[in-house]
Each structure stands twice: as C-alpha cells, then as structure tokens.
C-alpha cells in the first residue's frame, strides 16, 4: 500500500469512527506497522494544518481523533449542540490542576495543598470522568490515588500530559522587584 492510500484509509477510518482510536487499534485496522502509521498520521495532520482545512487530527494520549478546526467553531456551532456542561467552579479547576500536575495524588495531598477539604470537587471530577482512580497508596488506610483521564486531555485540548507547561513555569510575580537574597533561598523549595 503506498503512502497516499494509507493516508486515505486513515482518513476514512478516523472519520467513520468519530471516537478516538488507539494507535495500536489503528495500526491493526489499516494493516501497517505502528511506526509507519504514526509517520503517515503526522503527515496527514500537517497537511490539514498547513491547508487550514475544516478538519484536523488531534492526539489524545495514545489515541487519534478527527475533529473540526477551532477556527471554524463559529459556523459549526450553528448546527451542533454545544457540549452541555456547567463550567467547572474555581475550586474544581484548582483540584483538577493539582491532580494533573501531581498525579497520582491522594485526597489528603490535594487538601493539604489547598488548605481546605476538596472532596466535593474530587467527586465532581470523578463524575465528569476528568479524573479517575489509578490505584491505592501503599500506606495505612490504603487511600485512593487519582490521575487524569483521556477525557481530561480532550476537554482541555492537551495531546499528552507532557505537553502541559511545567508547574515551575507559572512564575509567582512579585510586587517589588528588588528582592533580597534571602527570598531566593525561600524560592528554592
């Protein structure tokens, strides 16, 4: 099968599926090895992006999915029901950020960081499928460890966790720029 045909088959399969398909499954369906598959998907993705096509391919963890380009949302919104979900509360997004960056993380770690009980937010995130239990901590009481899901990646347009900016990049700006050396010592936590 030549590259052009593999590209078309991938396009047909991603279109028909609608859902995200794992790289493994796609390579099985298209009948090419994973390396070839990934390079062809990359080629197709670049082509869509370069031509500013109406569709694009997004990566969600180890899955690929076909979607509309955000740029055309204004038009698409006119026929498609927007995904109905009440916006996450400030508290819930905070908890989600902690889970995303510190995963796998227990309820009590989350509570410690925020200084306040966060069970409601954790439960809401579980309910929304944005986080899930990833196992138990090997400690007394064996508390659950939480991590983010593929749904999280999709909902926040993040192709993989490694794509998230490092937590240190969120610099704490200071009102006074002439800080003493002493403060430096504190920053290095």
């Amino acid at each position, binding site marked *: 099968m030549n590259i052009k045909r593999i590209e078309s088959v991938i396009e047909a399969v991603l*279109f*028909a*599926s*609608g*859902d995200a398909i794992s790289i493994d499954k796609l390579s099985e369906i298209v009948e090419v090895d994973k390396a070839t598959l990934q390079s062809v998907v990359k080629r197709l993705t670049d082509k869509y992006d370069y031509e500013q096509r109406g569709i694009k391919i*997004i990566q969600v963890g180890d899955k690929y*999915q*076909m*979607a*509309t*380009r*955000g*740029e055309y*949302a204004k038009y*698409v919104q006119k026929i*498609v029901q*927007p*995904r109905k979900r009440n916006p*996450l509360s*400030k*508290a819930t*997004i*905070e908890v*989600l*950020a*902690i889970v*995303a*960056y510190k995963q796998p993380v227990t309820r009590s770690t989350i509570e410690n*960081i*925020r*200084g*306040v*009980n966060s069970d409601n937010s954790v439960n809401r995130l579980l309910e929304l499928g944005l986080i899930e239990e990833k196992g138990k901590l090997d400690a007394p009481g064996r508390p659950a460890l939480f991590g983010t899901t593929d749904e999280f990646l*999709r*909902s*926040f*347009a*993040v192709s993989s966790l490694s794509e998230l*900016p490092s*937590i*240190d990049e*969120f610099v*704490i700006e*200071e*009102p*006074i720029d002439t*800080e*003493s050396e*002493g*403060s430096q010592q*504190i*920053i290095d*936590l």
Partner: protein
Amino acid sequence: MKQISFKLDTFEGPLDLLLHLIQKNKVSLYDIPISEITEQYMEYLEQMNFFDIEISSEFLVIAANLLYIKSKTLLPKHDEEQEEEDPRLELAQRLILYKRFKKAAAYLSEREAIASHTFYKPREYIEPILIDESLSFVTLDHLHDAIADVAERLSFRRPLSAKKFREMAGRESVSVFSKVKAVLSKLKILKKIKFLDIFKNMKSRDEVVASFLAVLELIKVNRIAVEDNNGVVEISYLNKKRGRKDLEHKKN
C-alpha cells in the same frame, strides 16, 4: 495601618484568603508582614462571624498557625550566633505552591475555552462483518449420521403390541394411592419438603414412578403447592380450606 474593608468575598479556603490579603497589601510572599496580615485575617474571620457565616475549622487552623508565627517573630532571639529558620518559611512555601496551582488552574481554564471550539462527530453506522460459521464443520456425513440417529430413535418408538404393553403397564407393584398417603402424611408433619426428598431411600423404579404420579395427582387436586426456591423445588401442604380460599381469591 490602614483599615481594610471587605465585601466579604468568599474564598476557596484560608490559603486563598491569605493570598488575597497579601496581594491587597502589595507585599511580598517572600517577606510577609506577619502581624499586619494576621490582624487582617482575624478581622475577616470576625466579619464572617458577624454575618453568621460558618467558619470552617480550616480557617481556624491557619489562624492558630498565624498567631504562632507572630509570637515567634516577636520573641527575642536567644542566641544571635545560632541561625534560626524564618518562622514564616513554611507558610510562605505553602502559599507559593498553592499560588502556582492557582495559576495552573487559570491556564487550564484557557485551554478549556480553546478546546470548546473543537467539535467531534458521532460514529457512522458501520455494518459489521458477518463471520458465518453456520456450516463450518458440517458435512454430508453429519447429515447422514443425524438422519441415521433419527431413524434409530424412531424404531424404538414403534408401537408396542397390546400384550407387551399390558405386561409393562398393567401390573402395578406399588400403588399410587399408597404413595399419595405417604406424601400427605409426610407433609402434615413437616409442612414443607424438598421435592427430591420424597424419593429418598426408594428401592425400586416402580416406587419412584408411583410417588411421582402421586405428586402429580396431589397438585391436580390442589392439596399441595410446588414452588421453585432458587432452583430447589419444594413442596408444601395446602390444607383444604386454604386451597379453597385461594381459589376464591382467584375468582375475584
């Protein structure tokens, strides 16, 4: 110090409130003016109290912590030589970490807005491939064997001669009537027995057949009830009156 008036905003927690106070006072997280901040923090709690807002224990824990830090900073240092850790350090570290996550949360909110512009489509209807194994492993020989089996079974079911039939069915070595009595007397005592227990310790096939017929007869005349209790068939005694009552209920 200037008075800080609150609109009594709600905060996500005590750390959120502290960050708010620090920002409001335009002071550095790395050098928190602990007595001022503590004072304002306590003032906020008082207002919460005034407006009858329940103050969660987490706010009180931090309040105690602030007062402790404040007391430590006020205490004269015993030994100038010995370098003591800044008592504010731990709190500052917590606040910085929390603030980082607040920023990460703000970042995620932006991402969410971007993601909400992306639309997906539902799956197409896809006709599944049919793997038809109906006739795999079925050959003409199987058909032949099947018809031969049928023929053989039929030959066993040929009509019996009248004489042979009388020999088999005419003689009743165990009477059904005796078994009706046996089953009833058992039930009168035990009220409920397992169906299979009726046949316990029976020695001959005739006895089993007679007992089975007895059970059928008793069901027919509404003297016993049969129920399936999770796969265990049980037989219980219906006394005549109740039996009749049930019938009346049914009529109504």
